[in-house]
C-alpha cells in the first residue's frame, strides 16, 4: 500500500529537501518505487538537490493546469533506479490554490509509486497547510539549534491538529563532537523536549554538500545514517545513528581536540 510522507520543519534551511531526497534515494535502493514531489511553489530546489535540473520539461503547475499528464512531468533519477521526482514551478508568479487537484494527482500517483515524499515549503502559511493536509505521515526536520527546535515545536502542535498516522522527528546536521562535549543537545534530549519520537539522526557531513545525483560514498558518515533512517521509515525499526560515538573516550577526545584546532 502506498504511503504519502510530508517532510516539513517550519524553519528554513534545516535540510528538508536534503532529507526528502536522500531518504527517497535509500527507499528506492531498497527496491521501493519512490517519487519526491516539490510542493514549494516559486522557491523550488528539489531538482537541484537531485541533480535533475536539466531534465525538467514539465512541472507540477503544468500538471495542475492540464498542460500535460502527470507521468510526463515525473522525471526519473539518472543515478538511482526506482527514484523519481516531480518538480515545482520555477517562477515566483501567483499562488496556486489547487489543493483538490493536488490531492487527485497524489491519489493517481499512488497507483505507480510505493512511497510519495512531499517536500514542504518552509514556514507555516498556506503552502505548509496544503502539504501537510495531503499526507498520512509527517517527518519534522530539526537541528539541535534552539531556533529550529522552537519552530519544530510549533509545527508539531499544528500537525497534531491534523489526523496523521504518525508524526516523527529527524535531527539533521548533528555535530557529534559538540554532543560528546555536552555543548549540543542529543537526540534523546530533543525527543524529550519535543515530546515526539526521533527516528533519524543525520550527522553534519561535507559529502552531502558535495553530492551529485543523490550519491553518497559508502564510507561517509551520512551513508549509514540515511540507511538507518530509511529502515525506520520502511520497517518501523528505529536505529539511531550516534554521531557522538567516535568522539567519546580517549581517542575521541583527541579527535575533538584536532577538529577544534582545524
Amino acid at each position: 500500500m502506498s504511503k504519502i510522507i510530508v517532510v516539513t520543519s517550519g524553519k528554513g534551511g534545516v535540510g528538508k529537501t536534503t532529507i526528502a531526497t536522500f531518504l527517497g534515494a535509500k527507499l528506492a535502493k531498497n527496491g521501493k518505487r519512490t517519487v519526491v514531489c516539490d510542493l514549494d511553489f516559486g522557491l523550488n530546489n528539489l531538482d537541484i538537490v537531485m541533480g535533475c535540473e536539466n531534465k525538467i520539461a514539465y512541472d507540477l503547475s503544468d500538471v495542475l493546469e492540464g498542460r500535460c499528464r502527470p507521468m510526463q512531468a515525473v522525471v526519473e533519477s539518472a543515478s538511482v533506479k526506482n527514484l523519481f521526482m516531480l518538480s515545482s514551478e520555477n517562477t515566483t508568479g501567483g499562488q496556486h490554490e489547487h489543493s483538490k487537484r493536488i490531492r487527485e494527482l497524489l491519489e493517481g500517483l499512488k497507483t505507480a509509486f510505493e512511497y510519495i515524499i512531499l517536500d514542504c515549503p518552509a514556514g507555516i502559511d498556506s503552502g505548509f497547510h496544503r502539504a501537510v493536509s495531503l499526507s498520512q505521515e509527517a517527518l519534522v526536520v530539526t537541528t539541535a539549534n534552539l531556533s529550529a527546535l522552537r519552530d519544530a515545536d510549533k509545527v508539531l502542535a499544528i500537525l497534531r491538529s491534523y489526523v496523521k498516522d504518525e508524526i516523527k522527528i529527524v535531527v539533521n546536521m548533528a555535530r557529534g563532537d559538540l554532543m560528546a562535549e555536552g555543548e549540543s543537545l542529543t537526540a534523546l534530549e530533543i525527543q524529550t523536549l519535543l515530546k515526539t519520537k526521533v527516528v533519524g539522526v543525520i550527522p553534519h557531513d561535507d559529502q552531502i554538500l558535495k553530492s551529485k545525483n543523490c550519491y553518497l560514498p559508502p564510507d561517509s558518515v551520512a551513508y549509514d545514517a540515511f540507511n538507518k533512517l530509511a529502515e525506520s521509515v520502511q520497517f518501523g525499526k528505529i536505529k539511531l545513528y550516534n554521531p557522538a560515538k567516535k568522539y567519546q573516550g580517549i581517542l575521541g577526545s583527541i579527535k575533538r581536540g584536532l577538529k577544534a584546532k582545524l
Partner: protein
Amino acid sequence: MKNYKPIRDSLRRANQVLTGDRMGVTAQIEDVLAKHVTDTLGEFFSLNGFAKAKINATKNGFEIIIYANAKSVKQLKML
C-alpha cells in the same frame, strides 16, 4: 570529556523557551505582574520588599500564585 553538569545551560534554556511558548506566559510576564501587584498592594500595605508572582499551567487553564509580605496596614483616608 563529557559535560556532567546535572542540567546543561543549553538544555535548561531550550526547556524554558519551549515551555514558555507552549504556556503563552513567560518569566517576563511574571515580573510585570509582580510589579503591578506590588504597586497595588503598596496602596494598602507597607510592604517588605516586592511581591512575587508565579504562573503555572494546569489542565483547565492557569494557577496564579501571588506572595507578598507587609509589616503594617496603611491608614486609608475615608471621604
